[in-house]
């Protein structure tokens, strides 16, 4: 399946989704004004993954420095997709949420997402 590779900018994150290499990550800053348009290719890619892939142990890494509230809703949409990928067609998902050691806000955001979705959620300090 196609690789999704978005290079990060001042206000959008780096995104790599590569089923073959088993690399799934979002990192950097996510402050787009129109988050829905920005994340649309990610949601589409995950839909494709759900219908074409099986037996993949996905480690999905989220390592964001900042994200705006427009992105927060889309992140939840992404995690909901992961929720439906998990335990279907023999696929499994582990979500790793990274936060910088003194960034309580980012840590709490991770905790809140883990309450909103049924996923293996690991909070990792860096």
């Amino acid at each position, binding site marked *: 399946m196609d690789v999704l590779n978005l290079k990060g900018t001042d206000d959008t994150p780096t995104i790599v989704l590569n089923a073959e290499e088993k690399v799934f990550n979002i990192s950097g800053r996510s*402050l787009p004004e129109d988050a829905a348009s920005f994340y649309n290719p990610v949601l589409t890619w995950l839909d494709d993954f759900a219908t074409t892939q099986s037996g993949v142990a996905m480690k999905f890494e989220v390592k964001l420095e900042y994200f705006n509230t427009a992105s927060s809703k889309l992140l939840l949409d992404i995690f909901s997709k992961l929720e439906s990928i998990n335990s279907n067609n023999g696929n499994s998902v582990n979500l790793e949420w990274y936060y910088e050691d003194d960034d309580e806000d980012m840590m709490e955001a991770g905790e809140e997402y883990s309450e909103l979705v049924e996923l293996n959620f690991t909070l990792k300090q860096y």
Partner: protein
Amino acid sequence: MSNLEDLKNAATPLNFIYKLHEGMMSKNLKLIYEGDFSQDILKAVLSMTEKQLESIGEDGKIKKKVFNIMVECLQNICKHTEDNKIKINHKSAIFMVGFENEEYFICTGNPIKQENVELLKMKLAEINNLDKEGLKALYMEVVSRGAISDRGGAGLGLIDIARKSGKKLEYSFEEMEKDYLFFSLLIRIPRN
């Protein structure tokens, strides 16, 4: 001949520059931007503020809070000014960042349409009535509620600002000309 006193007393048309500078210094304002707001302006303003905070060696945690709150404030203004695009003279808004008594403050001011005022006042009152836990519950409710509104923000911006600052939102509405009010918002971000 060109010492500060002379400059200050000179009745030149340019003395507003000095007055403005003095005003900014006395209010400890780090940055004022007045004009049109767009995503590109947002990036420029963020980058300037970030550099200032870095140059004084501000703590990473505070830097992130200020940055996050600025983003929400600026994107709120962007959304409002888009709503106002029919009347070009109502696109202009003001944004300020300052530091005083161990707290950062962010001020925004922008015209909003009369018809949107009641809803905004209700949102502000609701947010200011909630404590930390209540704000968390409201945030989680709104974020998981489904489709984002036409305005793109699902009303999350103000809730997030209140949560990250840990302070009540201070605001006022001033009468402008017909159909518009000027909405001023002040957010305090304590350093401790």
